């Protein structure tokens, strides 16, 4: 009973922690108790719950899922909803599914826990703590603390295969869960006679959509005594491996090894492939990118410090050059993605980091190359392989910040390896 009470009382976290950033409907309602009785009524036009649109706390994102098998658009909301229980949220799921199906506007609700409920459980007794601690994924809630501290045996990263997400250990204990997507922008084609008619090309990044198309993904995992890997295939030309090394000295970082190409252009559409890392960090539209590996510059969405900005390009206008690192932070932690080469990057959605990895375009952008950015080898588009390191650092912990800076240089100046065939025996060696 106590265990159920315990779970009940921390269920916001429990679900949030367990289901990462794609939380399901009931958590949205559970956050605001008074709404739990009233089913969420979705307005036909806006896709929002018009009674309390102002506090809806979710945003309507146009993410459209493309099922790579038969290229059919899936309505993801039904997937997210299909195996939910009705009891906690008292939301009439069937009605909601019907509404969403009719509405066909709300494609996906992202939810950020705007407030962290302080849990005021009386301290658990010894044997209760022991009972709870046998569960490998147990959370320990320290009544006096706001933060839910995840107890994980080694502070090595781990991941969830079913609902793919990565648990990046906090340097101060606990972890943050990050889900990831690969997506593509369709490139704009124009006659280059005016800025608003430019093609996306070697000098110009200009998508002709306002939201990227997100690939579906299928993941499998490999585990062993040195490294655990989560391998995800998005489509035949986009895949990645998430690597978490088990070694006690290889902690607090995750390696993403991505392989992209050859990008198909039979549909005569230029494509720009991006990686997206989604966390539930609240960064208020601010992010940091390094300029030429020197200082980190603060960037703010749709804003320039020097002049009043009106953006014609809501996506490209918020992209900045990333030489080694892009990061977002809240009042406690900094989530960084370290790149192994220069890439374009942005944070277009709260808690998200987006990096452009590979492009294949079909038109020149009239800035002088006189050639589309369509490099080929063997008459096929280039295959590109690279990697990102995900690091989480504690802004109040100097060692953690030094660790992050060293990781950045270690990523850039990686050990060089050379190999030699030999016939000598091990003893002679």
């Amino acid at each position, binding site marked *: 009973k106590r265990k159920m009470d315990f779970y009940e009382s921390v269920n916001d976290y429990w679900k949030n922690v367990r289901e990462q950033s794609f939380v399901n409907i009931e958590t949205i309602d559970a956050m605001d108790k008074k709404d739990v009785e009233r089913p969420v009524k979705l307005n036909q036009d806006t896709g929002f719950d018009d009674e309390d649109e102002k506090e809806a706390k979710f945003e309507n994102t146009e993410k459209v899922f493309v099922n790579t098998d038969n290229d059919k658009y899936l309505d993801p909301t039904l997937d997210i909803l299909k195996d939910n229980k009705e009891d906690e949220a008292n939301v009439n799921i069937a009605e909601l599914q019907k509404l969403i199906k009719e509405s066909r506007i709300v494609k996906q609700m992202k939810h950020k826990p705007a407030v962290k409920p302080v849990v005021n459980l009386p301290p658990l007794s010894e044997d209760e703590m022991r009972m709870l601690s046998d569960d490998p994924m147990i959370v320990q809630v320290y009544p006096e603390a706001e933060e839910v501290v995840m107890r994980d045996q080694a502070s090595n990263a781990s991941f969830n295969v079913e609902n793919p997400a990565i648990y990046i250990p906090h340097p101060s204990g606990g972890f943050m869960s990050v889900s990831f997507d690969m997506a593509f922008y369709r490139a704009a084609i124009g006659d280059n006679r005016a800025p608003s008619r430019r093609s996306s090309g070697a000098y110009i990044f200009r998508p002709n959509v306002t939201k990227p198309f997100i690939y579906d993904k299928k993941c499998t995992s490999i585990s062993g005594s040195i490294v655990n890997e989560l391998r995800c295939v998005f489509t035949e030309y986009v895949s990645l491996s998430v690597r978490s090394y088990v070694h006690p000295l290889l902690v607090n970082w995750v390696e993403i090894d991505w392989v992209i190409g050859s990008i198909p252009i039979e549909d005569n559409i230029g494509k720009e492939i991006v990686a997206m890392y989604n966390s539930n960090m609240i960064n208020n539209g601010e992010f940091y990118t390094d300029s030429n590996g020197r200082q980190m510059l603060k960037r703010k969405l749709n804003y320039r410090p020097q002049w009043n900005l009106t953006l014609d390009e809501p996506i490209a206008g918020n992209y900045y050059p990333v030489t080694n690192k892009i990061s977002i932070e809240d009042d406690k932690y900094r989530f960084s993605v370290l790149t192994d080469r220069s890439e374009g990057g942005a944070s277009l959605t709260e808690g998200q980091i987006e990096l452009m990895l590979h492009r294949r375009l079909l038109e020149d952008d009239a800035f002088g190359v006189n050639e589309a950015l369509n490099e080929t080898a*063997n008459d096929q588009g280039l295959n590109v*392989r690279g990697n990102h390191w995900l690091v989480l650092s504690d802004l109040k912990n100097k060692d953690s910040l030094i660790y992050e800076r060293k990781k950045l240089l270690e990523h850039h100046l990686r050990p060089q390896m050379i190999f030699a065939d030999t016939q000598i025996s091990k003893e002679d060696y």
Partner: protein
Amino acid sequence: MDAIDELKSTMGVMQHHDAVTGTEKAHVAHDYERMLSAAVAGAVEVTAEAVNKLMSNNGTVDFKWHRCMLNESSCHVSEHSQRFMVSIYNPLAWKLDAIPVRIPVTEQKYRVTAPNGDYIETQLVPIPKEVIEIPTRKSTATHELVFVAIKVKPLGYKNFFVEVEPNTVKREKRSVNRETKDD
């Protein structure tokens, strides 16, 4: 110094904004790649001589060292040798406590010996299909031999000795991933 000067002057050419950002025509990009890979290959010769010199207590050790295409998980030496050495160079000014090493190999049982003569733990991980199918990749490697090299000194080398375990029959290629089998 000629080899190192060659790499320096090539890197000088690569400071052009085209080389940095990719705003050049494809055939110019290919020429940059040609220049850079030739210059890097030359510089590896210098590293190889240094390692041979460090390894031979004024004897004549003359190993033929090769750089491998680790970014496409291919390495002629490790794929075809029953016994080979790996030399790891730490370019940083601080000790690296742990370096994950991934060596492209075929599916056999390997044994890795550290400089102090101890065997170190390894894991064989299948190379992702998407890498194996890269059209320009010419390699027979189907797996990566993974181990962790610890405590490599600043600007220092560390050599490991890798051998195929004697009584391992070369396994025909299997689609099933070994980890699952072992589990």
